[in-house]
């Protein structure tokens, strides 16, 4: 967290809880939810809207 700017608040798209994001998040950035750990994409700022990020199809081997 940068000390000179306040964190911004947003709604977690999965649990609906209010979560805190760094002040400098940008549209399109991927950031993880502090509640669920899920990777979220920043869809818009002001107000901040988040969506679940499309999952990387990482096939851990098979």
């Amino acid at each position, binding site marked *: 967290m940068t000390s000179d700017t306040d964190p911004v608040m947003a709604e977690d798209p999965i649990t*609906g809880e209010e979560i805190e994001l760094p002040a400098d998040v940008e549209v399109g950035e991927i950031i993880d939810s502090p509640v669920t750990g899920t990777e979220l994409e920043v869809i818009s700022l002001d107000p901040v809207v988040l969506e679940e990020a499309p999952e990387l199809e990482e096939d851990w081997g098979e």
Partner: protein
Amino acid sequence: MTDETYTASIVGGTGFTGGELLRILSGHPDFEVVQATSRSADNMTVGRSHPNLRGLDLRFSDPDDLESVDVLFSATPHGVSMGQVDEYFEAADTVVDLSADFRLPEAALYDEWYDGHTSPEYLERAEYALPEINRENLSGADLIAGGGCNATATMLGLKPLVDAGALGPDTGEVVVDVKVGSSEGGAGGGAASSHPERSGVVRPYAPTGHRHEAEIEAYLGLDVSFTVHAVEMIRGASATCHVFPDEPVSKADLWQAYRGAYADEPFMRIVSGGGGVYRYPEPKAVAGTNYGEVGFELDPGNRRIVVFSAIDNMMKGSAGQAVHAANIALGLPEDAGLEFQGLHPVGSP
């Protein structure tokens, strides 16, 4: 909180969970360890058995010479405590037992699952140690019965579903597939636990009929299909529960159930999806700590919930759980002595 320091002794100090009790209590701000017993290493320094505790100025003493203390922890094999419990209460005000001897609520269950009980009059007095299941009854308890490690892992995973009504005695099959490390077997050893034979296994060691089913039935009211595998690690128990709810549930429902159950729990973490390498509960992530991790996933069609949970069998699964319960019983901060956060990276801890 309190200014008082409680004196403590540990019966079974050379054992694996006895060693963990020694480690936790010797770093605990509110306890002073005055005695640790051993028959086989009487008068030897504790560091000889537990190399991490070489700094501790303490020698094992004979279990027949119990000193007077505030709290006695017993970490002996099943059957010892039920025979010694009168002596324990002569020596101490509070007894915390890590064995199965006081875990089940009724003598009949000991007839069914074990070889009976010789001190059934204590069973009602005993309180099950796992705070996430039984916190409300622990305050002031003077006989505390530590849970089984595999039962603990399982119940931590399933309880939020039971509380949320997604799972009950009539739900249908609940399959519990457990993977455990070699420290579960204790320091005793045997042919199957020699290094060449035990290394790298995926070995069905309790295919069916494991005794921990009795605890799960007693405290969650669930009849589960339980199978335990030994795998390559020393510390850790991981339970994968396959649940088929009557009604389909959503991810949001699950988050709500688990957040509701554990958001305020000091030692529970929900790990479910997300990014990076550690996306679900893993024993490595909690090794050496009193934390428990739980997480879940849904089958396409939402007809199956898979619940994962991970603990360190010697911490959340026994010694840590025991100290956590003792902290509550005595009115101490819940996490006193249990602050260790664990390591990363760490291998087969």
